């Protein structure tokens, strides 16, 4: 008997749980301005997230999926992408998308039930949210194929939850990325829960990262509470994808510090105490301590940032609240490039349709 294959899954962390740097930090992290930029984004996202939940709780927003505790995952990812790269989100990724031309009010529109929330401003190539779980990695593979055919020096990053890695489409995307050598990076937000199903019931693989081995490329785990590590590994993976057409699977390990969505209640299934335990590792506190320890941050700056972010969020909320719903006939206006004549009658009909008033 001989061993014909073996594999290794590395784990990356730059700042440990006590906010101490492990070895030399990546170049960008040695520049406080870069770190402060990441920090501000994470704070902004958390404040927006709390506000969105409050809006839902007061009847002004539809169902909303929180990103609490996962700020490093999304901020680090967005910071690690180049402007010309293409990003394919799942549905928690507004923290990434606001770094790429989308506005906070876009996300309020989307969760508030308005298709215009998918516009993402001038960003023409990023995909909109993908609600059917695990269907988007294939789209990323397709975009990567186009990039390759057009010989463009860009790459695609796609995100799904660890639940999404059980879907058949995920394997199909990974497999073709491996065999066609596509410039795509698969980023898995392993926040430990797929609604009520814990990571342990999702797969018996020791890591999600090792699913890459079966697809013929490398996978690694990254501490998802460490925004420096996340940005660092995303940058490296995207570089590898662009330059070598080699895919990577990044398993970002963090914790879902909230219900799945505002309509879920995690107390039905989440064991007591875990959330509090995991909170000690949470990403904003992790970086804050490092910044404070190195005199890059203080209480006064914190207060100012909180105020600024709250104001920015308020502006977005006002913009959302003041955006009137689209006219009802708009449901016909993007069905086709140009609406076939046979549907004009229905379009006229809905224009004059009286509907019961609803909240």
């Amino acid at each position, binding site marked *: 008997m001989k061993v014909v294959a073996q594999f290794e899954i590395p784990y990356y962390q730059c700042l440990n749980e006590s906010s101490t740097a492990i070895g030399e930090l990546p170049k960008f992290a040695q520049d406080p301005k870069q770190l402060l930029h990441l920090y501000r984004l994470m704070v902004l996202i958390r404040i927006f997230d709390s506000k969105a939940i409050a809006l839902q709780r007061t009847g002004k927003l539809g169902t909303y999926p929180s990103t609490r505790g996962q700020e490093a995952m999304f901020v680090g990812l967005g910071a690690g992408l180049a402007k010309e790269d293409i990003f394919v989100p799942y549905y928690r990724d507004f923290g990434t998308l606001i770094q790429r031309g989308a506005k906070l009010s876009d996300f309020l529109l989307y969760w508030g039930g308005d298709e215009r929330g998918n516009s993402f401003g001038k960003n023409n190539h990023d995909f909109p949210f993908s609600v*059917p779980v695990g269907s988007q990695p294939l789209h990323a593979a397709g975009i990567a194929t186009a990039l390759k055919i057009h010989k463009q020096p860009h790459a695609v990053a796609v995100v799904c939850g660890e639940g999404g890695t059980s879907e058949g489409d995920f394997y199909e995307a990974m497999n073709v990325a491996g065999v066609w050598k596509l410039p795509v990076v698969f980023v898995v937000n392993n926040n430990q829960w797929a609604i009520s199903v814990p990571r342990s019931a999702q797969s018996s693989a020791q890591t999600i990262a090792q699913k890459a081995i079966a697809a013929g490329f490398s996978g690694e785990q990254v501490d998802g509470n460490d925004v420096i590590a996340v940005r660092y590994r995303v940058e490296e993976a995207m570089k590898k994808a662009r330059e070598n057409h080699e895919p990577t699977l990044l398993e970002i390990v963090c914790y879902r510090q909230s219900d799945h969505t505002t309509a879920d209640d995690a107390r039905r299934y989440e064991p007591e105490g875990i959330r509090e335990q995991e909170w000690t590792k949470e990403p904003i506190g992790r970086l804050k301590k490092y910044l404070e320890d190195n005199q890059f941050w203080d209480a006064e700056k914190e207060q100012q940032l909180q105020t600024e972010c709250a104001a920015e969020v308020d502006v977005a909320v006002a913009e959302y609240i003041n955006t009137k719903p689209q006219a009802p006939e708009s449901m016909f206006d993007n069905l086709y490039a140009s609406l076939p004549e046979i549907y004009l009658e229905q379009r006229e009909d809905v224009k004059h*349709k009286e*509907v019961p008033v609803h909240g």
Partner: protein
Amino acid sequence: MAEITLVEALTQAMAYEMRVDSAVILLGEDIGKDGGVFRATLGLLDKFGPERVRDTPLAESMIAGLAIGMAAYGLKPVAEFQFMGFIYPALDQIINHAARIRNRTRGRLSCPVVFRAPYGAGIRAPEHHSESTEAMFAHTPGLRVVIPSSPKRAYGLLLAAIRDPDPVIFLEPSRLYRWAKQEVPDDGEALPLDVCFTLRQGTDVTLVTWGAMVKETLAVADKLSKEGISAEVIDVATIKPLDMNTILESVEKTGRCVIIHEAPRTCGVGADISAQIAERGLMFLKAPVQRVTGYDTIVPYARLERYYIPSEQQILNAINNVMEFA
């Protein structure tokens, strides 16, 4: 006896059948500890244990394929898809296997599976959660498609679906889940499949409908009776195989027919019913058959959703058209 909602009636039916038939297994995402995202399987994990109430990994095609294998080997799986909008990955399994395994093996193997899913619009959910594509399954030979519209019928029809030896697509109108309560005796009595239910007798016009639109249709029929128009309301319930006899007998009596469904107009099940009335009942008609349907659009997001769903006014307009035709 307690009055229960439609979703509670489903739980009651599953609990009953699991008690009396140990072959019944439930599988789906979040159905165990969480009791299902609409609580349709609430309490069943505690009652029957994790062998029989299985939280699956997140994969719809897997759920369908597993169920098919289990059913061929002596089990009676009741598989939940979290929403009809997420059934699509499972279509290959359902259409290429569940629907035809009996046929291909000349009866040696069969597929007594129930595929359940919440369906339809009206709960202001994010996109993809408001689908009504029952016509797709109705078009597939070898399947049954069943849609309840009240707690009592949900109980009786789900029992019938579980006991049926062939695959049933059981679509549950999500906006009726908690809409109203009814006394539903837990007596294990199934309702018959393959037959329509006449919910309200009338003589002037036949209203054919199913799912959540039963609610609006009954409200309209009630309003009309105060204006001297007597409407007969038929709940199709089993979309496939379709009981045209009930519909035709009613049309023979009234001479007028309006079909109401939430699903988009083109090639909706209403088109098939209309064609069959033309084939077998044309001589009784006093006016053309009218269809009141969803538009031929993607269901709009929550802000415009109520413009999509057929309204009581639209139903009334269609009825006035047929009453005034001749």
